[in-house]
């Protein structure tokens, strides 16, 4: 959060405002801390109540994290899953944004693609796991394609919604200033749609995290999802906990980075996150 300094405002007031903002931030952080501590407390209670075969205690989870980190499993899992997510999600954006622009802009394209978008959007990626492995093998591509699948439709939907929300007067203004259809698409429609694209990208990122576990369900040697699945086979509830918590933290970090970068780089397009 930045404080805007206005020349005409007397100094003490500005300082007071900055102080107030800092106090507000501190309060937020303190409340976060309280919430986390209470959460861990409840977790501890549940663990003592149900025992280590059902719920791994915070302490057990922490030491399991240490073990997994020491032998490199954790780092490799994070790297492997992140790579799949970033590639699949990135492809989803690269395909989804232009497709969404066309769907929103050209009625013929919309009418041709809409039935498929509306159809596939309700089929969860886990339904395609078997087909993905049968068609693409057990390598990286089957996982990346599943992430791509879960990302691309939401990007298309958001982008096309953004295109259809572009104000009529902006389009008319551009046309009467002499812009061609292509120039309008690049120079007016795309920039106006940026906030919608960013929302789509964030939702797609969430979907990618939801999908990574199912994508790694079969024949993944390494990855957070595969860690969770193989731990089950070994009866290591504590490793399952490590996988789940790492996934949550990783998702949070990815979203934060995306938000910060987008609001810095794309501020002029009205991206406020």
């Amino acid at each position, binding site marked *: 959060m930045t404080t805007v300094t206005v020349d005409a405002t007397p100094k003490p007031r500005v300082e007071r405002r900055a102080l107030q903002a800092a106090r507000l931030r501190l309060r937020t952080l303190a409340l976060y801390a309280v919430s986390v501590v209470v959460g861990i407390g409840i977790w501890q209670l549940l663990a003592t109540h149900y025992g280590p075969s059902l719920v791994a205690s915070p302490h057990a989870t922490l030491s399991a994290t240490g073990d997994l980190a020491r032998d490199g499993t954790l780092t490799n899992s994070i790297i492997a899953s992140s790579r799949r997510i970033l590639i699949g999600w990135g492809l989803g954006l690269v395909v989804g944004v232009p497709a969404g622009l066309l769907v929103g802009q050209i009625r013929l394209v919309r009418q041709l693609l809409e039935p498929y978008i509306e159809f596939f959007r309700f089929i969860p990626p886990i339904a395609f796991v078997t087909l993905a492995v049968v068609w693409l093998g057990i390598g990286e591509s089957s996982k990346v394609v599943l992430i791509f699948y879960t990302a691309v439709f939401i990007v298309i939907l958001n982008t096309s919604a953004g295109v259809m929300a572009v*104000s009529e*007067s*902006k389009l*008319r*203004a*551009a*046309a*009467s*200033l*002499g*812009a*061609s259809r292509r*120039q309008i698409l690049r*120079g*007016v429609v795309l*920039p*106006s749609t*940026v906030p919608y694209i960013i929302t789509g990208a964030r939702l797609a990122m969430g979907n990618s995290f939801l999908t990574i576990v199912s994508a790694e369900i079969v024949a993944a040697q390494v990855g957070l999802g595969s860690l969770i699945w193989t731990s089950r086979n070994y009866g290591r509830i504590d490793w399952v906990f490590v996988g789940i918590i790492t996934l949550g933290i990783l998702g949070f970090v990815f979203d934060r980075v995306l938000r910060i970068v987008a609001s810095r780089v794309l501020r*002029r*397009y*009205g991206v406020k996150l």
Partner: protein
Amino acid sequence: MTKAIEAGLSPAKKDGGGHGAAVRVDGVDIKFGSFHAVCDISLDIAAGEFLCLLGPSGCGKSTLLSALAGFVRPHQGALTVDGTPITGPDPELGMVFQSSEALFDWLTVRQNVAFGPRMRGKSRAEQTALADEYLSLVGLRHCADRFPPQLSGGMRQRVQIARVLANQPQVVLMDEPFGALDAQTRQVMQQEMGRIWQASGCTVVFVTHDIDEAILLADRVAVMTAGPAASIKTVYEVDLPRPRDESDPAALELRRSLRQDIGEEVRKSLRDQGLDPEDER
């Protein structure tokens, strides 16, 4: 539709010499589905003239303006600029919208104004020169590097005007450009508008529902009847010296006639909606 004026050096135009084009509206009908918006309107607008279209709200003034800008096709009749039919949006027909939503918020003020020249393939230097020239004309040269959301409503409308003028159009169409501004800003903008029009020399078609604004700015005022199927009721010549003085007896006389005309139309429109204005007293 030829223009000799090039970027940056437009002394010929600065003195207002013959840049505007004559606009002809000939028996124009506009329908939206079964809704008859505008019915059989004919108007001859001289090159370089400032014409106000005045009428009660919802009477189809903006519809007629949209047709002149090429956004809407008339159902019948012809619209021409210097004899050439209007077939679609055209940089020669600049449009200033009522809402500054028409500005591109992600571009600086200078880039907004340079948008037209850029679309038409002018060099970067020419774009900047044109943008700065017209920003100076509207008094916003010092805001060139800001973004539209950082400006006040009046300043944003000036940017819109500069953006249209930077294309050096023959005709400028204005759709209640000051309607959303506060009273003080509106007054300043109206005075500026007279100066800007004289400096640019283009033909202006200006839609408003504000009688005083029309008297202040127009060479002629065309009063429209209440819609649907609106037409031209009366055309008044405003033969007053510029800059205009609102307290001039002739201006007061004109205001009385215009008010009476508009009043009749508003009452008629209320009666059509089943609300008898006489009953309510």
